């Protein structure tokens, strides 16, 4: 089996968020970047488990500049077999999805796995866009993936619970909690990653379809109002009369 796992570079969860260039760009100075957690923990690890059980390989792909290479090496250290970096500055979901789909188009991957969203832009848009470019189903918020009798059997979150579905042929999924558990790369993996192939391919030159006017930081909270533990009725009054939420 051959899987493509799409990897995004994301700022570490604990990053202090600041902007530059007139609040139009994220200020990357001093920021620690990581593999987007959902791409790593859920999508990549599940693809590796399936290949370990059935044979095959896991290719990882990212759209970005040379600053993405350490992230791809990290994913190779976890166990991916080959990395591909599509050489373009990522601008928005439309551009990234078009580039990834163009790369994947004639490669016959059994499935393309993405995390449920990136922790920087939180759009959750790339999987569905790729699926449309490739004319295959998109399974959003998938929580499990197995293969039985030549079909992929998936579970996904819906408005009312978990639904079980089957798909014959290739598809794109966005992985949510339940798909797999985080793996920590070991020293052998880290050493092996250095010699695994990291191919840099030229971009198609897809255009972005949205533009950020500016980023805004939320107003500071006024500070917590503490209520005496002996008098919870006061909290009820405040929620009703001051906050007006009940």
């Amino acid at each position, binding site marked *: 089996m051959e899987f493509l796992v799409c990897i995004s570079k994301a700022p570490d969860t604990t990053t202090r968020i600041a902007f530059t260039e007139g609040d139009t760009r994220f200020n990357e100075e001093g920021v620690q970047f990581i593999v987007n957690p959902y791409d790593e923990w859920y999508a990549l690890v599940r693809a590796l488990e399936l290949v370990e059980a059935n044979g095959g390989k896991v290719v990882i792909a990212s759209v970005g500049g040379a600053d993405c290479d350490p992230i791809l090496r990290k994913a190779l250290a976890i166990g991916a077999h080959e990395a591909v970096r599509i050489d373009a500055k990522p601008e928005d979901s439309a551009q990234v999805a078009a580039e990834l789909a163009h790369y994947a188009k004639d490669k016959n991957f059994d499935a393309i796995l993405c995390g*449920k969203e990136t922790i920087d832009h939180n759009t959750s848009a790339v999987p569905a866009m790729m699926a449309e470019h490739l004319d295959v189903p*998109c399974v959003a918020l998938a929580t499990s993936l197995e293969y039985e009798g030549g079909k992929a059997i998936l579970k996904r979150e819906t408005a009312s*619970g978990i639904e079980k579905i089957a798909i014959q042929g290739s598809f794109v999924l966005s992985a949510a909690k339940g798909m797999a558990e985080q793996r920590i790369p070991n020293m052998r993996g880290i050493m092996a990653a250095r010699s695994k192939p990291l191919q840099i391919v030229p971009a198609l030159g897809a255009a972005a379809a949205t533009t950020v006017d500016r980023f805004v930081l939320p107003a500071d909270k006024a500070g917590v109002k503490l209520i005496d533990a002996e008098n919870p009725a006061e909290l009820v009054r405040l929620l009703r009369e001051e906050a007006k939420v009940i």
Partner: protein
Amino acid sequence: MKCIAFIQTKEGKANKASLEAAGLASGLGETVAVVSGHLEGDGGLGAVGVSRILHTAAQLDDSQMARLVSAAVEQESATVVVCAQDHLGKAVAGRIAVRIGAGLIAGVTATPIEGSYTRNVFSGKAMAQLKGTTDKLVVTTTPNAIGLPENTGTAASVEAFAPEIGQRKVEVLEEARPNSGDRAPLPEAELVVSAGRGLKGPENWGIVEDLADVLGATTACSRPVSDIGWRPHHEHVGQTGITIRPNLYIAIGISGAIQHLAGVNSSKVIVVINKDPEAPFFKAADYGIVGDAFEVVPKLTEAFKSL
């Protein structure tokens, strides 16, 4: 500007997240709704400003839905498509954007100002204001972020709609079973009561359930509690679990790690109950009670009961 609102129904009615999406669309211009599956009357869509409904009774997969909506865009010469940023929006909105050659602005949290849409980025730690650079635009709305417009008091007309939408490729083996009972699903919930390790064990969740019952709130939990199996995974809110934005979030015995805050920091009002006055969650809270949950929560439940 003419809009298409893509609607998800529950028992024949547009669900709340879809009504919010349709309401945003009708504020932009004449809005035609597209509905697949069971629909009763106008499904509540006339009230939020929808004039007409294009309806197909069939149950469709994501690819067919995208074709259906794209056909409606073409038939109506619409330039904006709006749907909710729920599981369906995440599977279909991106497809529609590619099909009609439109930009996608996902998960907006407010009505646009001069074509500029606001959405949360960096897991709620900042907001972005952005525009589409294409002639057409697809917009998805974050559930419980945008209120409903004033009821128009009119009904929408319903027309059968059956464009060519291709073959179904996804086979449903088991329908989803509700996992939150009668309560609102977490992403849509207006009131959420959540608890963490401070509760000491799963047998102590009665006080959380009682408080949620009195409020009609949905219950949630922190990651450690779902990881050790005290509560089901579908209750886990936080960065790795579900992101929520209720009007009121009551956190009991949760310290407030940054990963937890990332999933709940868009809540309009946060109440923290914790016996540790140094718990980081108090910094993100609007109201707090420093005290033992086993004493405070039952008293709070009683206080709500006497409303």
